[in-house]
């Protein structure tokens, strides 16, 4: 253990003197990711707000057959546009988002009290027009039911008769939970901060040490290679953790600039979140450190290791994408999967929900077990002659 501490001390001292390491671990990592996240938030929120208030441009064909309908729609925010020659083709070629076509017999049908048809032309494969389609459909349905009620009243019938059911939608998501939909990426950004923080030291103390040919003299000392590996792993973890703490503080500060109020959302990224998440992250940081050293130990040069580890930064994105694409109810078994478990825990905390201490315990145990396993694999690599020899 003593030897591991000596290695740890030397790795830290050496890294503190490397401007590259400091810049990446203590400045770029902790600051870049919150900034990136903030920009992303503003973009998403900005777009949603814009879409909700903006007039809805719709090409209307045959407006003269239903002036009342068009007026009513205009009052609700629709902006009628001049007709185009071949509306089907225009929508297909994406020149036009949405077309409302009112047939010549509309007026006749309307007067006779027959269901009068209006057509909506759109391309449902275009994700960005879904919101507009829904808005127009809601406007038309509202107009239709309002007029239906009026007709019944004119004949002395209560409109309530044709509404045997009334559906009341009550969204019980807490403001935090609504915010967390947008914050789904936050766990990834935090883990990314930890990854960036440890990466340079992991490379420098393995592939870098081989490249500079200092590994061979080091191994000639009467110290087990497990001790050397342990020291390097702990040094990497310390830098990773420092980066994470700074990153969390940056997020804490960035929280004030997040446009959450505009959407009526709350985000639980206060000091309690930080204090809860830190112990949850410690086992994960250890796992990340040893995994980075493992990968970097395969590389012969600094650059090669850098390539591998840059690709490895995408790995924590997998649980994030799964959680966003396939929303799952948090269950205990998820805690047992390293990376996944911690991300679920973070999301729950961000939603302002309480976290099962058992889940945190299981997560820590399984993550530490994974770290121990990778440590053994890396140790075997360290003991091979391939790693020891520089040239």
């Amino acid at each position, binding site marked *: 253990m003593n030897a591991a501490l000596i290695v740890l001390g030397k790795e830290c001292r*050496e890294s503190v003197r490397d401007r590259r390491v400091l810049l990446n671990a203590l400045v770029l990592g902790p600051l870049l990711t919150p900034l990136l996240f903030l920009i992303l938030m503003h973009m998403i929120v900005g777009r949603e707000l814009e879409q909700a208030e903006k007039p809805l441009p719709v090409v209307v064909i045959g407006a003269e057959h239903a002036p009342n309908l068009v007026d009513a729609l205009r009052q609700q925010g629709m902006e009628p546009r001049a007709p185009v020659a071949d509306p089907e083709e225009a929508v297909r070629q994406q020149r036009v988002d949405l077309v409302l076509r009112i047939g010549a017999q509309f007026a006749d049908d309307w007067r006779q009290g027959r269901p009068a048809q209006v057509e909506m032309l759109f391309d449902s494969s275009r994700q960005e027009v879904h919101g507009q389609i829904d808005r127009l459909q809601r406007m038309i349905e509202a107009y239709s039911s309002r007029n239906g009620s009026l007709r019944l009243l004119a004949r002395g019938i209560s409109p309530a008769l044709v509404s045997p059911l009334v559906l009341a939608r009550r969204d019980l998501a807490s403001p935090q939970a609504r915010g967390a939909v947008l914050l789904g990426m936050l766990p990834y950004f935090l883990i990314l901060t930890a990854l960036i923080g440890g990466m340079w030291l992991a490379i420098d103390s393995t592939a870098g040490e081989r490249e500079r040919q200092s590994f061979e003299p080091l191994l000639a000392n009467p110290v087990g290679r497990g001790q050397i590996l342990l020291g390097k792993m702990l040094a990497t973890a310390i830098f990773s953790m420092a980066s994470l703490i700074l990153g969390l503080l940056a997020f804490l500060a960035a929280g004030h600039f997040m446009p959450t109020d505009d959407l009526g959302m709350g985000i639980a990224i206060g000091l309690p979140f930080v204090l809860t998440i830190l112990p949850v992250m410690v086992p994960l940081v250890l796992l990340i450190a040893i995994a980075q050293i493992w990968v970097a130990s395969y590389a012969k040069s600094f650059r090669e290791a850098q390539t591998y580890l840059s690709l490895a930064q995408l790995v924590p994105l997998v649980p994030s994408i799964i959680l966003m694409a396939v929303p799952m109810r948090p269950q205990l078994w998820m805690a047992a999967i390293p990376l996944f478990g911690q991300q679920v825990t973070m999301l729950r905390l961000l939603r302002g929900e309480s976290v099962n201490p058992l889940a945190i315990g299981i997560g820590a145990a399984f993550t530490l077990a994974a770290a121990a396993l990778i440590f053994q694999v890396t140790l075997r690599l360290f003991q091979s*002659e391939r790693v020891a020899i520089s040239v």
Partner: protein
Amino acid sequence: MIEVHDLWKSFGKTQAVRGASFVAQDGQITGLLGPNGAGKTTTLRMLYTLMRPDRGQIRVDGLDAALDPIGVRRRLGVLPDARGLYKRLTARENIEYFARLQGLTQEQAAKRCDELLGALQMQDLERRRAEGFSQGERVKTALARALVHHPRNVVLDEPANGLDVMATRGLREVLRALRGEGRCVLMSTHIMQEVAALCDRILIIAQGRVVAQGSPEEIRNQAQEHNLEEAFMKIIGAAVVQEPS
């Protein structure tokens, strides 16, 4: 004392060391002499347990390297072919790091470092970072690192490589001093003057085995040449003819 018996090592199809056997005695400088690719570095790497031999036995002060590699490394001071200093650390920090890994306390390490800085006349390097060291300064620092724990046995791979005349002289003095203290010094080299000037015993190694050994005098007699270099060429030539690879 370093004893090597019937050492074999191959990398894939290449047989680097093929049955090397020799003894390096305490109080003597033993030179491992051979052409490039003769297996000198590989032999030394097996000595300080960086590599495991395929076959054969290594004993350092009676300890078996296969059974007690850490004990063996404790009794060895090693100057590997790769000097490998830590560039962002000063000479003192480089030396003290290895002293601590050898088990010295912080105070012992600092005190021993002072001694070595004086003995190797490198006080001016003490607080400089290894970043801009010359070849000679690098060898000095690496040598101090290797001697930091008073090893009974000192193994040096091509110690004079890249050194100028002044630095070479300094190195010779250090090695003679080590011999004077009764330590076992084993160095590999391909520089004939080094061998002639320093070595009590010469091991000529070619194609992975020891083809001749003895004092410089004995080597010359064996080859019936007056000049050590001629003797070396003759012995190597004979070995290569006997076993074309």
